[in-house]
């Protein structure tokens, strides 16, 4: 009886982990003004609570700002007239799978490391059109002028 209960339990847990892990990278925590989530060829208005997937881009309009929380508690915000792309994200501590690749294409940003920054900072790749930023578990700001 215990064994069966446990089996069912572990199956449901696995199902929910499998669902939660591969695609979901984080979510929109706050939106001031207006912004978009650009996914494949579609542009969706960004709202608090919206899921951010791997390969999504997030943009803000003038006088707007967006806060994002990733699954590993990495925090990123975009100031006005900004665009970032989430190239890659993986966070599975039990399998020691970590990856975070972000492109900051234009505008202003604030960044604060999460669990990946603590456990595997070498797996974080942040770039702008001009430079590569290597992070050692920390907070920083970026401005990119086109």
């Amino acid at each position, binding site marked *: 009886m215990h064994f069966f209960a446990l089996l069912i*339990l572990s199956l449901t847990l696995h199902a929910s982990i499998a669902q939660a892990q591969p695609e979901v990278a984080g979510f929109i925590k*706050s939106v001031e003004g207006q912004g978009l989530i650009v996914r494949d060829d579609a542009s969706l208005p960004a709202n608090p609570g919206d899921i951010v997937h791997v390969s999504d881009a997030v943009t803000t309009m003038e006088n707007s700002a967006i806060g*994002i929380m990733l699954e590993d508690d990495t925090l990123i915000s975009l100031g006005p007239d900004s665009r970032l792309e989430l190239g890659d994200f993986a966070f599975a501590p039990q399998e020691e799978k970590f990856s975070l690749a972000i492109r900051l294409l234009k505008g202003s940003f604030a960044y604060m490391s999460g669990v990946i920054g603590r456990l595997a900072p070498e797996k974080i790749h942040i770039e702008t059109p001009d430079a590569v930023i290597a992070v050692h578990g920390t907070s920083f*700001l970026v401005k*990119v002028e086109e």
Partner: protein
Amino acid sequence: MRLLLLMLCLAFAGCAAKGTTVVLVEDPDGTVGQVEVGTTAGTQSLNAAGQSTSVKDSSARPSPVRTLDRTDIEKEYGPAIQAMPTPPEKFLLYFEFGRAELTLESKPAPARILESVQRRNSRDVRVNGHSDTIGPRADNARLSLERAEEARVLLVQEGVDPAIIKVLSHGEGNPLIPTPDETPEPRNRRVEVLVR
């Protein structure tokens, strides 16, 4: 008008030309890490709060370090800084030995968690159950899930929206206080609630 803007722009040192600027800032706990900004022509490291470097393009060397004060930083990055989410808040709920019942000290916790959910406008609450290492592993997996489920029920009774709660059981495998097997450790009989 354009010219006026340009002149205003030139008058303020902070008004950036084409390229990338990176500024190292303090973490909320007051510590400062390190950042390296690299191009094909070189690397500049920043290791104190307010230090910044600029890069014109990917083939140019990053500029020498320039230290910005709070006013410069606020002017250039204010909206992004204000939009920064606050880090998730963590609560620990402790349980009686071998049971899915809150200790007396932990009984007020659900009310504090609800307060945090409302204050943060959270749509994401993680409930992670844990046990100590007394008894078989499988029993502890079950017990830690029962504890997480109990915490979930208490949070819902308190008024937290069930749709935003995710429950996960870690069993004895993720102790707060590492111990050998078959060790009673009250601090490991816990549920961690993360309000994100």
